[in-house]
């Protein structure tokens, strides 16, 4: 939980795109990195980060969305996974990749809008092949084309009551 008030600004531009509409190749999407095992010692993102489930990989669109809102979306992923009796997960960062690089990874691969109530900028990477080795190659290529950003440090908690 971020503990922040709802954002009063207008809906981001990404929210206007109907579901399943392919995104422009110039757009960038982000995938939350929630395990240290998703980045190797050389700082290279690993293909497990983009492993599809039920034929899709969830990402969030960056176009028209404030940086802080993108991080809140990533944190929301972690918050959903954490809960009583579950191992505590941490948001390590996010991997940004252009939709054009996704499309270049293999004919048939694309990124489509998949807005959600909690995240209008939600999208899916789709078009995954059934062959496991081929899928692994595409995941590896997308991971290689991604740029990792470390999650911002949580705000320090003030011990001075005067600062409230």
């Amino acid at each position, binding site marked *: 939980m971020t503990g922040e008030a709802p954002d009063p600004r207008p809906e981001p531009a990404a929210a206007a795109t109907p579901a399943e509409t392919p995104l422009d190749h110039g757009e960038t999407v982000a995938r939350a990195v929630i395990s240290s095992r998703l980045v*190797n010692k050389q700082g290279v993102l690993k293909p497990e980060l983009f492993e599809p489930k039920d034929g899709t990989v969830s990402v969030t669109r960056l176009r028209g969305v404030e940086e802080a809102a993108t991080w809140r979306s990533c944190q929301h992923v972690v918050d959903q996974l954490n809960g009583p009796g579950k191992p505590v997960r941490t948001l390590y960062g996010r991997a940004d990749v252009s939709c054009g690089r996704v499309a270049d990874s293999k004919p048939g691969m694309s990124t489509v809008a998949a807005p959600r109530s909690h995240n209008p900028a939600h999208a899916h990477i789709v078009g995954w092949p059934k062959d496991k080795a081929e899928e692994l*190659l595409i995941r590896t290529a997308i991971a290689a084309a991604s740029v990792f950003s470390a999650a911002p440090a949580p705000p320090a908690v003030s011990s001075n009551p005067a600062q409230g």
Partner: protein
Amino acid sequence: MKPPALAMAMTTFASCVAASSARSETAHRVDLARLGIQCHLQESRSVGIQEVLDDLLALAQEAGTADWNGYGAEPLRKASLQNAEFLLRSFGLGAAHPSLGASNAGWVTMQWARSATWTLSLMITDDGLIHWAALLGSSRSSGTMPLNAAAVQELLKTINRVMKP
């Protein structure tokens, strides 16, 4: 339940002892000396890969239950873990250690990387297959092969190509 590394070490020790049991006294002494060297070498090899075997054990604990990743993943499969341990031991001393992980299907994954565009990634299934994908600069390749001696040699070649410019 014994950790895989310990189980393998015990198997190695047992095979060393068994091999030396049915010999004459003299031959037995000679064999003991020779086997002592062999066991020492095997132990050295184990020490050489102990770090990655420990990591495999840690991975088994992290991903040992259903939904370990929050996305409905299968628990790591025992046969995949055993196959992964076999593969790591087969590489022997000198091979670069991979970064370990797990797939949604409950398979061990390994990755060797010099940079983002020079990588070898693989998944080891519970039925003895290796799905692999390599980025070799501007070229890329992938495939599936059974886990055997030929696969180990092929992988070692690719690991060397990826890790040593």
